């Protein structure tokens, strides 16, 4: 165990170092920095009922989670009534093979995809490519990272880590063979070029795969929220529409949907409402002039059912708005890829160890200052920083932390609990450090503190501790 965690530590620290030194990443993140935050605040301030709606949103999610089995059955019943199919997948592998089967059975060659984090979670693209499908991401950000051969670095802004220059290069490289030989550099031209390339893909795809922001039990519908409209083109044009979603995505009725929609866009991008909110139920009806002939839903568990009833159940309320990422200073510094898996930021640091195993990402819950900004903005009031602390406790109890650090903690706690002895012991280093540093005001090196003193002075400590001064000054001073 501790071996795993030490390898991981090196890997995580390496990724962090790479990220902090990546000039492009730092430029892109600096640009993105305050946009989301300011816009969310503006949207929040414009809606006096915002916090009450957040409470309602949390309550809806809690209600569903404590009745999840029944709501899933009710939802399934409606999907079938609408003429769709529901598939259940225990894990990522099972989900991928179900989807690959559907694609093969429908004779598909090309697949378009709307942005779906759960499909990233199941590594769907490589699985489909392995059975000969050509897979095209259609959300502009996802498309950019697909061209770059990367994973998204943000759950709602997948290419937030890319600069315009990098996107220019990517488009030039990949679109030139399609006849777009001019190198375009302006934002508008880049968007237009992607639009016309992807248009061809939309109309020729055999299967469209989307995620779901919500699944509505009342009507058996999946709800998809986008600004680009790519999710809709993916849902509507191909012969087959496959929806992938985690089992926690179900909600009761359309009225519940309204509550959640009122907090989703505001929290995510600071919009009151996204450009497109679409509610799809089943394949085309006899009276319909268009629409997919088949409609499948693949429900993924992948560890979620085990989170129910645990200390971490509240994490299943997450509506993937990304606000916690946008407000996390650590995410802002290192970007999404440093987290090592597809869910970054605070929500990822809570979720990754739960979905991939506690020993899979020992650093994530620790690489956090517990500043609580994530918890403050989460629209469904997930106590993210408390959950991160819970993870640390879990790690400590499972002995996933290094033996040395545990030993130091125990020794320190022993000392702390003997205050007089503690005061006596501490007086020695205090005196020495003060002697060395009082002339300059700070130390440039302290034992075991290189991490600090490499980049910061360590302010000079006092010659004598407060308590020793207080008690030597005649009890209770004058």
């Amino acid at each position, binding site marked *: 165990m501790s071996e795993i965690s030490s390898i991981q530590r090196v890997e995580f620290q390496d990724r962090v170092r790479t990220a902090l030194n990546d000039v492009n990443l730092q430029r892109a993140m600096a640009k*993105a920095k305050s946009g989301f935050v300011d816009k969310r605040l503006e949207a929040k301030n414009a809606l006096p*009922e915002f916090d009450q709606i957040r409470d*309602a949103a949390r309550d809806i999610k809690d209600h569903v989670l*404590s009745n*999840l*089995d029944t*709501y*899933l059955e*009710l939802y399934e019943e409606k999907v079938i009534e*609408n003429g769709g199919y529901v598939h*259940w997948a225990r894990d990522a592998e099972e989900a991928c093979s179900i989807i690959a089967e559907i694609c093969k059975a429908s004779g598909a060659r090309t697949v378009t995809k709307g942005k779906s984090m759960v499909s990233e979670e199941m590594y769907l693209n490589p699985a489909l490519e392995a059975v000969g499908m050509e897979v095209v991401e*259609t959300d*502009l950000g996802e498309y*950019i990272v697909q061209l770059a051969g990367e994973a998204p670095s943000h759950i709602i*802004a*997948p290419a*937030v880590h890319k600069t*315009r220059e990098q996107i220019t290069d990517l488009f030039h490289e990949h679109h030139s063979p399609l006849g777009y030989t001019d190198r375009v550099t302006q*934002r508008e031209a*880049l*968007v237009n070029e992607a*639009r016309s390339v992807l*248009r061809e893909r939309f109309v020729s795809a055999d299967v469209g795969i989307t995620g779901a922001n919500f699944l509505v*039990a009342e009507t058996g519908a999946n709800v998809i929220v986008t*600004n*680009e*409209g*790519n999710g*809709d*083109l993916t849902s*509507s*044009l191909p012969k087959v529409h496959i929806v992938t979603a985690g*089992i926690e995505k179900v909600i009761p*009725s*359309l*009225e*519940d949907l*309204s*509550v959640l*929609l*009122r907090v989703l866009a505001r929290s995510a991008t600071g*919009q*009151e*409402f996204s*450009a*497109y*909110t*679409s*509610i799809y*139920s089943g*394949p*085309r009806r006899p009276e*319909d*002039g*268009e629409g997919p002939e088949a409609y499948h839903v693949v429900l993924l*568990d992948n560890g979620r059912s*085990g*989170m*129910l*009833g645990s200390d971490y159940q509240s994490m299943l309320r997450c509506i993937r708005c990304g606000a916690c990422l946008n407000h996390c200073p650590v995410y802002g510094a290192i970007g999404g890829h440093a987290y090592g898996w597809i869910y970054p930021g605070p929500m990822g640091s809570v979720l990754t160890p739960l979905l991939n195993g506690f020993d899979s990402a020992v650093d994530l819950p620790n690489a956090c200052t517990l500043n609580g900004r994530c918890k403050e903005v989460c629209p469904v009031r997930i106590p993210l920083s408390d959950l991160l602390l819970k993870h640390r406790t879990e790690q400590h109890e499972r002995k996933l932390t290094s033996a040395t650090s545990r030993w130091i903690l125990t020794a320190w706690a022993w000392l702390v609990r003997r205050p007089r002895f503690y005061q006596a012991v501490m007086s020695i280093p205090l005196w020495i450090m003060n002697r060395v540093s009082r002339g300059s005001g700070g130390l440039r090196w302290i034992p075991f503190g290189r991490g600090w003193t490499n980049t910061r002075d360590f302010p000079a400590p006092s010659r004598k501790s407060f308590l020793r001064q207080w008690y030597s000054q005649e009890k209770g001073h004058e």
Partner: protein
Amino acid sequence: MSEARLEILNNIRKSLTAGEPKTSQRTSELRARLKSTAPQIQPKFTDDNLTRFCEKHVAVHGTYELIKRVDIETAVLRYLHGLEIDPQIHLGAGPCLDQVVWSENVFIYKKSADKNTRVAVSEAFAAIAETGTLVMRSGGDLLPSHNFLPDDHIVIADCERIVRYQEDVWSMLRKDDHFPQRAINLITGPSKTGDIEQTIQYGAHGPRRLHVLIVKD
């Protein structure tokens, strides 16, 4: 597959034993909750529906014009002329649109939009004042491709059908014969993306412009 279903549901139940047990009574309570469709908390606002709709629609980069029922064709032609676009339209359907007798000046397609479609003219099932949102539904001549493929989308909205909140639309949809309609598209402004440098660009995949003709006699 049904094995997976069973296992997942059992796991959920096992994890939830602290929660409410699954009983047929519980199931019928939840079914009843699905049927109780009272709105929960809604944002208050004082403007009338039309004013609010227009304000919110403009805020998301939409344009609009208030017109009389008889002037639909003229308004469509004027708008297209202003953009120097040929009057070739993919036409939807609806109580207002169906009454229009189109002149020879307009070339009409009654079919799905495709990748080259320039203009679609649709009629909204309803519109939502709260957020400046148009509500489109599928079925028959109502083709969702019209909402997402053209460069320009012109939508007729009957002023009488501008409702206050989303929840009002759900009630209207429930009364509709085809409920739940295969596709319900809530449209709030033209297509856009912020994926390049977090800066908004319009016309990502869907319409670059969204023009609403509000019919008010």
